[in-house]
Every structure is written in structure tokens, then in C-alpha cells.
């Protein structure tokens, strides 16, 4: 992600931080794109936030299933390359 893309997408962090929703459908991704390969296997889910829906990756190591209550948290999206901007973003975590 280049600096301008990072900067534009980071404007959405505040909107999602802390928001809660219900998982509508979820899959565990075993074969991922190159930049997410180190995170695999990870969950990817479609979430219902009440007034809108959005798709998010689940936090590392957590398996999500339809019906789970989740909350948006701030995490690293992918393993950062040593010299690159660290790709932060929002993921969802099960609410215990």
C-alpha cells in the first residue's frame, strides 16, 4: 500500500473502532494473497452492524462463525516488510 492509499484508508479507522455487529457468514482462508500469506489461516467475514454491513478479516488465530458477536479492533493487516509503512487497519474480534 503506498503512502497516499494508506493515508486515505486510515481516515476510516475512527468510524469503525469499537463498533459491534453480528457475523452473517464467515470463511477460514487457508490460501491467501501474498501479502496476507503469513496471517493464514484467518477468518474473513461479512458482518451486520445494524444500519449497514461490512466485510472484515478476523484477528489472527480466531475462528469466526455465523451468529458470533464481534467488535472492530485496530490491528496490523499483514506482516509488514522491513522498510515499508506498517499496514494498520481494522479487523474484528469475538466479544467474550
Amino acid at each position, binding site marked *: 500500500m503506498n503512502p497516499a492509499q494508506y493515508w486515505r484508508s*486510515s*481516515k476510516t479507522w*475512527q468510524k469503525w*473502532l469499537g463498533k459491534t455487529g453480528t457475523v452473517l457468514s464467515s470463511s477460514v482462508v487457508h490460501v491467501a494473497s501474498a501479502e496476507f500469506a503469513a496471517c493464514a489461516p484467518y477468518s474473513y467475514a461479512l458482518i451486520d452492524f445494524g444500519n449497514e454491513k461490512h466485510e472484515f478479516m478476523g484477528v489472527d*488465530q480466531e475462528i469466526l462463525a455465523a451468529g458470533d458477536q464481534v467488535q472492530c479492533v485496530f490491528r*496490523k493487516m499483514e506482516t509488514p516488510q522491513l522498510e515499508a509503512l506498517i499496514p494498520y487497519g481494522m479487523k474484528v474480534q469475538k466479544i467474550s
Partner: protein
Amino acid sequence: MRISRPVGILSYGTYLPAFVVSGEEIERAQSKVGENLAGSLGVSQKTVPNQDEDTATFSVAAAFQATQRWAGSQADIGALFIGSESHPYAVKPTGTMVHRALGLSEDMALADLQFACKAGTQSLQVGTAYVLSEMAKVALAIGADTAQGRPGDVLEFTAGAGAAAYLIGQENILVKILATASVASDTPDFWRRPGQAYPEHAGRFTGGPGYFHHIALATQKILAETQLTPDQLDYCVFHTPNGKFPVTVAHQLGFTPKQLAPSLVVKNIGNTYAAASLLALAAVLDQAPAGAKVLMTSYGSGSGADCFLLETTPLLVQKRKSWRNLVQDQIERTNPISYQTYRRYTETTQQL
């Protein structure tokens, strides 16, 4: 210095990652089974960050909890200081990511601090100064770390991960800041050169000339300035490089085990470095009654110490009733992982 004008903690939040690795697992990995190293260090397990976590993600989580518990306006936060030994960038403050994630105002004084384990409390003190000087209405101070211990080294037993965030201001104070003082010297007990994955430490030298000397110096300074004796205080919090040092220094300075006990979360989370004293303080504040006097002294290798005299208010007790995810709750929801898994996770979160 005694503070004559009102200033204090308006809210606080903490974050602990969900994984812990036990002292037994580490003993096995280090082929030191039966030596009871974990027992002698007073740390039975320590927290481990997930692969997608780092000091910035911790800071956001702790700061978010602090702001969620606070009825004030985020637009009033005009200063943001974060202390850590594991800032994700050597150049680009961790504070910038927290700033963005929380959506804070662009009117902001912001910088990262480093002073080993006292960088968090130093941030608290800087924030207090900004508020008192009216350079900011509200300040946000965070201590956060994803500490690393070299495989096979004794620090592997204690180097944990966590964060604590404090909002400081003058209105609707939960915990008054009555006095604060700092001491500093050049005492080379622990350091890390850039590009090195793990710090170096000077063994037992870290004790006497380091930890004990500086904590005593700063604490005695505050006690003298405020003309208080330990028995007049309700709680004490001392930096927790392990579970033993704070017990010893508390005793040396005339405090009782009962005054110290609520702060000893180190047993279950390890040494969270720049977050340690602030997390220990949070554990105390999570259960202290109104009108309780708390003395906190942190220690940062290299060396220095920050001491604070605090007093809880009835507002803290009232507000706390609706809070969730207190420090103890987060400790209780941690899950144990194997040494192998712990090493795999920490390889990805390694800071250089």
C-alpha cells in the same frame, strides 16, 4: 514538586493481549526444569502479543477504553505522549497511529518517548505539565510495550506485553495528582542499540545501583516534599521488573505488603516495561475506595525514576460501577500457549 492547582486523571484504560506463556513452559525450553526460576522471579506467566498486534495496536486499544469511559470531548485532547521501548517506527511516532484511529483533533502536541520502563510514567508527567501550563485542556499519556527476551536469557521469563492509557485534565477528576518528582542519572544497567533485536542487561548491577537507588531517591523526595510517611498512605505501586523487586523496595521504604498487594499484577502478566507501573496503578484504581492516597514510583533503566502522589475521589468509585474489562477481567480471559507458539508470534512482532 507539590501541585497546588487541581489536576488529575479523568479516565484510564488498559489492554492486555489474550495469550500467556507460563514460567514452566519457558523453564522446559531453557532446559532449566526444577530450578524454579519462575518462582524465584515471582512471575508465573507473562502476556504474549498476537502476530497482528504491536505497541501501536495496544496503545489504540488502551486509549479507546479510556475515551469510552470518559464523558468529556475528544476535541479537547491537545497533547498525546506515548512511552515505549518497542515503538513500531524509529521515525514516525506511535502517537500518530493512535491519533488517527481515535480521530483526534489536529490541534495536538505529540511525541514518542523512550526511557526504558519509565517512559509511560514520564508521558503521564509531561501530560500533567501540559495541562497545568494550560498548553492543553486534556492530555493523553500512554505506556505500551511488546517486550522481548532473548531465548535462553533470564529476561525471557518476565518480558511481557501490554498498555495503559491515562487522560489528564482539570475537570471531573477521578484521581487527583497531588505531587510528582523525577530523578535521572547515567547508570548503564540495561540498553539496546538500534538494529539489535534484544536488549543487553548488566545482571545484578540492575538492582542496587539501578532500581533500588533511583526508586528510593524519587520516593523519599516526594515523601519529604509532601511531609507524609508511608503509614499515612493507602497504597503503593513500584515498578515491576519481576515479582520480587517491588516487594523488597516496598519493605525497604517502610510500606506494608497489604499496601503493595493490589498492584502486583506482574505475577500474571510479567514485566510490561513502559506500561508496567501504569498497569499496576490501574489495577489499584480498579478497586480503591474514595479518598485513598496512592504513591507510585516507576523505574527506567539507564536510569531514572518518576514518583507520583495520587488521591482517589468519589467520582472514581461512582464511574467505575459501569466499567467492564478491568485489569483483572483481562487477566482472567487470557489463554495459555506453548513455548513454540510464543516464539513464533514474537518473531513476527519483533521490533528493530
